[in-house]
């Protein structure tokens, strides 16, 4: 048994696939921790190689529809248990078959990917909706999120397309990193951002006013005669409220 340890990037995982076929490994297991817990296994550190990755990517794209490939890609960010392992099982099935297998939903290997990808897509949608920027004194629009899956990479383009003329930073408080747009491009920034949750000094003078204004607006568009809390919670689950301006108390 061989344990493959990648660097946590999608390209790293693709490189591992290349190695599996190159060295004809048969019994493999993926590990994100680097060292295997399995004492009968040797661990192999995979060095990400963009050329290798590109070749595997091409192979997958040839055998899958664009949507099928996207599903696999999205699964990488799902944080389901053993994601890399499950993706490998799927890829193995893909390479072993002559026809496109992505529609074979009755196969658990395919089904797992489908489910994971669905979850990631839903979470990306939610983040596009639920990000709430707050303007800082140095004119950066700053938002904190805690998504269920690791979706910042997937939503970066949406935000840079839309907010092309403002500097913004979206910080994932669960995973302790953010994406920052500097008016030209988006880059990943690692930091612990506790100081920002504190004092009011860092916010733009009008920030509080607009938050209150939005809260008032949210309050007044509600039609009491049609109240339906069940539907409300279904669309806006409570775990997201912490970072939603309209749901904050004591503004």
């Amino acid at each position, binding site marked *: 048994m061989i344990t493959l340890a990648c660097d946590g990037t999608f390209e790293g995982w693709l490189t591992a696939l290349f190695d599996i076929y190159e060295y004809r490994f048969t019994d493999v297991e993926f590990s994100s921790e680097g060292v295997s817990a399995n004492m009968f296994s040797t661990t192999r550190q995979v060095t990400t190689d963009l050329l290798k990755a590109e070749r595997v990517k091409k192979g997958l794209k040839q055998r899958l529809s664009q949507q099928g490939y996207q599903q696999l890609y999205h699964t990488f960010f799902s944080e389901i248990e053993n994601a890399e392992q499950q993706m490998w099982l799927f890829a193995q099935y893909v390479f072993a078959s002559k026809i496109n297998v992505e529609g074979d939903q009755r196969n658990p290997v395919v089904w797992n990917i489908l489910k994971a990808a669905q979850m990631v897509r839903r979470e990306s949608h939610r983040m596009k*909706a639920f990000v709430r920027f707050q303007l800082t004194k140095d004119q950066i629009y700053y938002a904190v999120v805690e998504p269920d899956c690791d979706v910042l990479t997937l939503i970066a383009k949406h935000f840079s397309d839309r907010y092309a003329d403002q500097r913004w930073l979206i910080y994932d408080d669960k995973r302790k990193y953010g994406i920052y747009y500097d008016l030209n491009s988006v880059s990943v920034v690692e930091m612990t951002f506790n100081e920002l949750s504190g004092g009011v000094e860092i916010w733009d003078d009008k920030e509080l006013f607009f938050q209150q204004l939005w809260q008032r607006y949210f309050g007044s568009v509600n039609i009491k005669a049609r109240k339906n809390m069940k539907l409300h919670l279904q669309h806006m689950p409570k775990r997201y409220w912490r970072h939603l301006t309209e749901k904050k108390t004591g503004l």
Partner: protein
Amino acid sequence: MLLSERVMEKLEILADAAKYDVSCASGQSKRENKNKGIGNSSGFGICHAYTEDGRCVSLLKILLTNHCIFDCAYCVSRKSNDIKRAAFTVEEVVDITISFYRRNYIEGLFLSSGIFSNPDYTMERLVRIAKKLRKEENFNGYIHLKAIPGASDELIREAGLYADRLSVNVEMPTEQSLKLLAPDKNHQDVIRPMTFLKEEIAGRKEEKKIIKKAPLFAPAGQSTQMVIGATKETDLEILAMTDYFYGKMNLRRVCYSGYVPISTDNRLPALGTPVPIIRENRLYQADWLLRFYGFKVNELVGWDQPDLDLDIDPKLAWALRNPEQFPVDINTADLEMIKRIPGVGVKSAQRIVQSRRYRRLKPEHLQTMGIAYNRAKYFLAFSTPFSLHKDLTQEQIKQQILKLQQSKYEKNFSSQITLF
């Protein structure tokens, strides 16, 4: 600070006044972010929040003012109503829209207005706001403007250059009701700008085919809304209007807004009368059937049965009234007929037609195709005899399906039934 207090108060008043005006979410529009400006619209708008009644909040939906020279009985802003009045300035609306948009609260602006002094005066301000957003703020988010009935063609044309969607609201499904409840308005004031817009939109589309650079003109088309349940129109009359709007006016959407009682005027349902939520929902379902399922109005309602069933959806109702059309063999029937099977949506119907090329479909295949099988099974025929429900009467089928869906509206329904 005093100034911002006043803006807050205004927003409260003018959002409150606008909320009874249904926006059918935001329309579909494609507007790219040009020259590193702010915003874009791509396909369906995002719901950024949901109200406690479960409706999507995607636009800043406000009135420019709730002052009005008219006295439409069903409207909170009517002249004779004793309420707080307010009016935004052009700058205020622009400022709030941009500030909300930049914070990712909204997809854009839905701006309507009461009529101050005269229609043109009001329309001119709405246009000025849209123009300022597009030209000065370089804003490419979604803008929906209300075309004020009676405003000049010139202003309405200009509005189309900046707005994604324009709407002229008919408010009342028939001319008589409009006369009864909105004596200052006349039907022609509504139909005329609608016709004008229809021609303008069609003309601009042609132009755009030839000249790629021609400016966008209301790319998300025009829509309208009808208040239902305020007057005694039947669904037949309402859907006939709908049909006219889609067929003759090329409208993109017709919205139905269940009347929320706001007045003691005895021409209207009394305060405390429940909002006809189920009826509104049934009308939306019927609307959907007209647009995407190839149904004709007279298949859904008729003189003998002028209202939609409240306890079952209009497609199921049609199927039960037309037993001779069933069972349908999904292995041979054409797409149009498959779409008409209760429990089968447009997408699943297409999937059925696609996958039956590879193999004969059996009941178990359907379950993975996104079909409400428990509902569809009463109407399906399979090559191997599948006559499980052959002997059920239409009424029995209806009862079984009803039991199955445990009507999610049950609670609303029982309170509403007392109305009839």
